[in-house]
């Protein structure tokens, strides 16, 4: 078992799945010789050739639209969008076609497509490179939305996403890409989509997060534990759509309190859906309102002010304390 970072874990997941299934195709801007701007597809073109690792022209709608045709034809395209801030030209293809070809054709044509992309801030990047718009995808019927939090998760979730018979939008936390290394099994494994994961058990409050914020939540939990101030349960949502509300509800039935953490803008962010679900399914267990630690309803600021925008353990700790004291 090797220690891999998130980039390496995804690269390995792609490589192994491409070995197992000759219909898996990787395409996108600079995914070939360059190995992707984050090197996620490093080594793939050398191993599988240009017919299976395809450098495309610079056109996101083209990438996703063409991949839909490939998927309809029985291939399993894994499309990379260079940054999630550049996926919007492809939004139409995702919303109007990928998500509904199965419905439209009553099951005859299906789109087993994965669209991978880095998302989120914390990497001191240019405008449009720190976006976190997962909610705009999680609301689209017919799309699954998956966000891994660490290398182990990423390998298992991506493998499951590629094997899934329907389109999956796979957001990779850019900030985590090279931030941590962990043991990742050499053999293939799947982590089922649609199932949240309890990362840390606790009795007092449930903190729900995804992507890079899972680490933030854990850090806050450890800190509060060390100080004996609260016993925090941390849940990694993993899949925003379809949502695993059962795991959330079970946790909150136990803890009686909940906090959602995401870096996307607050209003209409996916935290609202989590909160609404707990309102509907767990209100009698709630000892305090479910709250949210989020980005602001603003454009993510450039690097000089970015840290004020991003949730961090301090904010999460403060909010937990606030909820405990409610």
């Amino acid at each position, binding site marked *: 078992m090797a220690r891999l970072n998130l980039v390496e874990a995804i690269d390995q997941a792609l490589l192994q799945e491409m070995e197992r299934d000759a219909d898996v195709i990787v395409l996108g801007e600079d995914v070939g010789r360059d190995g992707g701007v984050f090197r996620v597809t490093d080594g793939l073109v050398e191993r599988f050739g240009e*017919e299976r690792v395809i450098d*495309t*022209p610079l*056109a996101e*709608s*083209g990438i*996703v*639209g*063409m*991949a*839909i*045709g*490939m*998927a*309809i*034809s*029985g*291939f399993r*395209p894994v499309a990379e969008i260079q940054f999630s801030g550049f996926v919007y*030209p492809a939004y*139409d*293809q995702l919303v*109007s*076609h990928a998500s509904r070809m*199965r*419905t*439209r*054709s*009553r*099951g*005859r*044509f*299906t789109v087993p497509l994965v669209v991978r992309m880095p998302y989120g801030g914390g990497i001191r990047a240019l405008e449009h490179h720190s976006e976190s718009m997962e909610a705009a995808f999680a609301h689209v*019927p*017919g799309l*699954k939305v998956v966000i891994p939090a660490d290398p182990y998760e990423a390998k298992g979730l991506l493998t499951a996403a590629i094997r899934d*018979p*329907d389109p999956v939008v796979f957001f990779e936390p850019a900030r985590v890409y090279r931030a941590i290394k962990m043991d990742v099994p050499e053999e293939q494994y799947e982590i089922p989509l*649609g199932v949240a994961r309890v990362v840390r058990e606790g009795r007092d409050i449930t903190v729900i997060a995804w992507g890079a914020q899972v680490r933030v939540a854990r850090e806050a939990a450890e800190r509060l534990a060390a100080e004996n101030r609260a016993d925090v349960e941390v849940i990694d949502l993993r899949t925003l759509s*379809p*949502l*695993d*509300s*059962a795991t959330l509800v079970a946790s909150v039935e136990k803890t009686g309190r909940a906090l959602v953490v995401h870096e996307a803008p607050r209003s209409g962010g996916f935290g609202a859906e989590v909160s609404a679900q707990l309102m509907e399914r767990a209100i009698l267990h709630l000892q305090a309102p479910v709250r949210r630690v989020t980005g602001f309803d603003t454009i993510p600021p450039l690097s000089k002010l970015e840290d004020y925008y991003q949730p961090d353990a301090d904010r999460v700790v403060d909010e937990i304390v606030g909820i405990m004291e409610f």
Partner: protein
Amino acid sequence: MAITTVATFGVERVEVMDPEGVVDEALMPDLSPERITELYGWMVLTRRFDERMLKLQRQGRLGTFARVTGQEGAHVPAAFALHDEDWMVPAFREAGAFLVRGVKMEDFLQYWGGDERGNLIPEGVRMLPTAIPVGTHMLHAVGIGWALKRRGEKAAVLTSFGEGATSEGDFSEAMNFAGVFQAPVVFFCQNNQWAISLPYYRQTAACTVAQKAVGYGIPGVQVDGNDVFAVYRTVAEALERACGGGGPSLIEAVTYRVTDHTTSDDARRYRAEEEVATWKARDPIERLAKFMKKRGLLDDAGEAAVASDADQRVAQAVAAFEAVDAPNPDEIFEHVFAELTAPLAEQREALRRRLAKEA
């Protein structure tokens, strides 16, 4: 140091049969009398079906749809030129192509009647369902073409669209990807001069759609879209080239939308009746009939027989369509994903409970 010409391009126009049904023998495609008769039958069937659909729509038995009358000379021979192994990726104004390719009329009616079950293209028919968002589907054709090539299949894809669709960015991306990947795709534009109320000359400053191919390094050609032989010949050639590894091409079939845009539209608001009249006089079915009569492939009695045969088939389809039971509300959840996810199961259950209560 100088100003030099580094590239030149020309756009050709293909015409085989004149309005009187006289053909240029040198350009005639290889079509047996039987095949020509068959093609004529499809065109007539398409026309009668379209007219019947209009009546059904006016009676409230169908929803809004886009008529094809006057454009049978374009999309019908194009579909007719396809082999079974070829794919077709249509827009929304190709009723005749659906029929030619093997979609049942009653299914087609069912879909346009607001019941998505009619959209299940029969297994074995290589055709995607109607694509409503203008310009978006050509990229799927490129992906399918890429897949055919990668699998080594000797087949190509024909994707059809209106001239309005060429203004959408996706058209450009599809053409460019097709060029770069040398995908076996024939881009078939029914330039019917209008995109709802916008005339061609305001859709683009390019004098032909065909010349749009230049920007992608692929061949483009214009044909008389009311001349079935010009269309058939050009499409067949383009398909053959594509199958043989010759890459994509663009065909502009110049025709005319003699009807309203859809059954919700009133074209008199924005265009002159005289223009429509001119084009009605260029009817593609009549033109083919003239040719066939000259060749002894058709006489007045035969003409009437084809029409009444078509009417009969349409009548049967309408009866079959009307006999279909209303869909079960469960259908709403049936094909969202391969499996019924937890939220969908819950929502379906809620709907079932609601309906049980009401019943």
